[in-house]
């Protein structure tokens, strides 16, 4: 697989755009899954995963062929997801009053949407529930938990993808696990 991949990458670098199809085929599911778990939305996941491949194509000349291609590709996708999550967040003011409500501001609105009532959560099927719990994690824990337990990558690889020391990755995984544990046992 690696030999084929390297061959395709060289072809793309020489200007053969069609050779990139095989690269997409090889990684589309992994990348899409990563984006879906990070963003929790199919349309956004598709858009960001596609964008990740486009960026990889444009910047392929800067990829160091001695290193693992998947790590490089994951890194592009993870960064795009984190950017998207951050952009989505504060596009409203928390203190602003919600129109049509009497004195209710965004704080109460967030509390209401962020955490569903207990019985609603209990009625979810398992897969929805998993996605719901992942999406409640703060994004710095979400990325490590998704890379570790959904994409099943090694801690070393995660540290390369996120460009942070191994120790930091471990700390985040520990805290992520604790955060998830609390979420699951609070019900």
């Amino acid at each position, binding site marked *: 697989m690696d030999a084929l991949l390297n061959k395709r990458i060289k072809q793309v670098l020489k200007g053969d755009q069609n050779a*990139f199809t095989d690269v997409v085929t090889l990684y589309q*599911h992994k990348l899409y899954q990563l984006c879906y778990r990070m963003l929790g939305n199919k349309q956004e996941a598709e858009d960001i995963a596609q964008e990740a491949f486009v960026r990889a194509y444009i910047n392929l000349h800067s990829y160091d062929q001695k290193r693992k291609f998947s790590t490089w590709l994951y890194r592009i996708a993870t960064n795009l997801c984190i950017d998207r999550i951050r952009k989505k967040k504060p596009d409203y003011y928390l203190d602003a009053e919600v129109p049509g409500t009497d004195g209710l501001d965004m704080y109460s609105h967030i509390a209401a949407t962020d955490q569903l009532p207990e019985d609603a959560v209990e009625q979810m099927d398992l897969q929805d529930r998993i996605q719901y719990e992942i999406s409640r994690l703060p994004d710095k824990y979400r990325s490590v938990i998704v890379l570790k337990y*959904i994409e099943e990558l090694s801690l070393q690889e995660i540290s390369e993808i996120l460009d942070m020391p191994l120790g930091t990755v471990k700390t985040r995984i520990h805290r992520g696990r604790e955060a998830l544990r609390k979420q699951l046992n609070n019900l």
Partner: protein
Amino acid sequence: MSTCPQYIVDYMHEYLDGDISREHEQQLKKHLQDCSDCQQHMHQLSDTIAFVKSAAHITAPPNFEEQVMKRLPKPKQRLGVQKWLRRHPIIVAAAVFLFFMSATLLNNYPNDEFSVTKQPNLVVDGQTVIVPEGEVVKGDIVVKNGDLVIEGEVDGNVTVINGQYMASTAVVTGQIEEIDETFEWLWYEMKRMANDFMALFE
């Protein structure tokens, strides 16, 4: 559990990461046998991992590749051109220089059109410019593609490009130049540029 040391929880995570030392593992096991709270904590952590791992594999939508290929930037050639440009900076610099040079020169190259410097008392008759008798033209005269006949006086330089200069009793205070060929014209242009340049410092 609040009385249990924090390192027990750290050991749990080391264990879950699969990089716990034998020493820590034995301490952890010993502690878990005695402490039901920590046992429960450990169980909950394992359950949490099992829970996340039971997430179904998600696959990309069927036309995903096609969509990606459509979004790729088209210009393969442009990429090639850019590469080439990046590899040959000196040729590029030379080309740019030549381009601007030739543009300015060609701009001034005498085309077939007749033209003359505007001076108030010149008389133009077809393609012949006449300085009438008794008149004094103050300033330079340049005639392109035409003849110049001086019967009066010129207080300045006279230049005739691609034409004839005729004067019988003329009085010209400056220099008189006749230019017919391209080479001479080029020389003239260069001299003019140098003069303009020098004039900046005067």
